[in-house]
């Protein structure tokens, strides 16, 4: 983990609301793993006081680049969307805990909701590579979106299932509906990133089947490195964990989703 002024290698729109930011990662001190994130300082002169956190969506050690999939939400992400190759970014990373690898012989189910796609795509690609080496089974990625126009124009692993709320493409319904519709086999382990209501629904599902379940949680952050206790995530045992340092990936069965909002 360190801070670098990184060059933007590429910044391009990949769907209606999403863009892919690729930046020089050659000067960072450690490798990003799926589930980890970084924070970006927004707009030098007049920017807001908090950095913005984004999950890694990929890492290319040969080219020395890393990437994130970003949704245009407020001022910060709109500002980011306006940057181009050649601009620089003040980046702090890699931060947080990654997803753990599935056991051999268990087909991992990866579930992404909306912009939660970034880390799941990264994880899917890493698992694919591992499965090619015989280290694990090939993953199944299920990616849900409100509507077709949000689905980014990117390479997805073969067999990826798409769902849309409005049925404009793929399965019509939520990712959970889609999982329930999988006739062939019940999932054995679930990894997910997406909006909290989706993660909570998956937690209920995983819990009902006693499936291992890891979820990457979003919470407002200040320091991003575990010092300020701002990003607390409520646990079922009544304690709080820090999204930035103890997460963002948690055992989804131990998160108190009700209290997380």
């Amino acid at each position: 983990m360190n801070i670098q002024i990184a060059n933007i290698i590429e910044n391009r729109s990949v769907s209606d609301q999403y863009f892919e930011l690729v930046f020089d990662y050659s000067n960072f001190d450690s490798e990003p793993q799926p589930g980890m994130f970084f924070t970006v300082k927004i707009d030098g002169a007049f920017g807001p006081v908090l950095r913005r956190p984004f999950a890694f969506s990929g890492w290319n050690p040969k080219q020395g680049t890393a990437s994130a999939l970003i949704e245009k939400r407020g001022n910060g992400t709109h500002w980011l969307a306006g940057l181009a190759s050649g601009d620089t970014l003040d980046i702090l990373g890699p931060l947080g805990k990654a997803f753990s690898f599935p056991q051999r012989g268990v087909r991992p189910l990866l579930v992404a909701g909306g912009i939660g796609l970034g880390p799941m795509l990264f994880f899917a690609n890493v698992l694919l590579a591992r499965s090619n080496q015989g280290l694990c089974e090939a993953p199944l990625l299920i990616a849900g979106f409100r509507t077709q126009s949000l689905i980014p124009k990117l390479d997805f692993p073969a067999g990826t299932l798409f769902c849309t709320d409005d049925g404009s493409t793929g399965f019509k319904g939520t990712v959970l509906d889609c999982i329930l519709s999988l006739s062939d086999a019940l999932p054995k382990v679930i990894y997910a990133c997406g909006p909290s209501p989706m993660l909570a629904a998956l937690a209920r599902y995983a819990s009902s089947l006693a499936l291992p379940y890891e979820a990457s949680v979003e919470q407002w952050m200040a320091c991003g490195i575990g010092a300020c206790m701002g990003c607390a995530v409520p646990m079922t045992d009544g304690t709080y964990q820090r999204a930035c340092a103890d997460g963002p990936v948690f055992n989804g069965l131990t998160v108190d989703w009700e209290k997380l909002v």
Partner: protein
Amino acid sequence: MNLTVTIGSLTMKNPVGAASGTFGYGSEYEKLIDVHELGALYTKAVTPEPRGGNPVPRLAETPSGMLNSIGLANPGLSYFISNKLPELQRMGCSVIVNVAGKTQEDYCKVVETLETQTGIHGYEINISCPNVSHGGLAFGTDPGIVEKLTAQLRSIIEQGAAMRKDSCRPLIIKLSPNVTDITEIARAAEAGGAHAVSAINTLVGMVIDVKKRKPVLAMKTGGLSGPAIRPVGVAAVYKIRRAISIPVIGLGGITCTDDALQYLLAGADAIQIGTVLFSNPNAAHEIIQGIWQYMETYKINSVADIKNLLE
């Protein structure tokens, strides 16, 4: 040229400290910056018992600022002593323990216990906490209570020093800006025997999410920090400096050398940085360098003389 700052018996190596609650107990920042460069590290508040903190969300962003309602989340006095204090002792900078509580006894208990420990260089008393035995208004809003609390803590540390056969650790009262007349509270702290005051703590603020139609923070209100409050902090320090004669430690919205200099010119003897650490962990280093350069430019030998430059 001399960057050191003297507060009571303590000499800090420079005037730049990391503000309580924004720097944890230092260990997280060790990976990013040279913590030993700091003039002082003000710990996250320590309370007698462990506290999980407030419900979430605890953070909200505001124009040039932020709200927090962390709620004094901390592992409690015993854990602090056994696990955090040893870490702090190797940081290589003055360690000031920020103390909080719900009752006067809470404060006394923390300080009394810490007096038996080594590796602590001073106390900063967070009197912005709600006083349960006084209707919930913060301790720091009543000059009588502040003077009494200060006097009691002062006598505890005098006794502690005698027991340790050591000089008395400085007692710093951290003032709340949410009062009609902050100089009145500063005078009460001085009268009670404080070695210094620090100002300002956060302002009370609220943000409402108009889509969700509820306050963003689970606790509804939170503490406003960051550049937005800097003018309030500078005005407070300017007035306090002219009301009391003990040292004043200035904070609130400092992001860079010029901001720190505003406080030093207004009359602060030292400063702290908080919120800026979230966007620029390297700020302390930059500000220490910057103050050095300013002193060179104006040919001043001691940080304490910066305040004399104000016309």
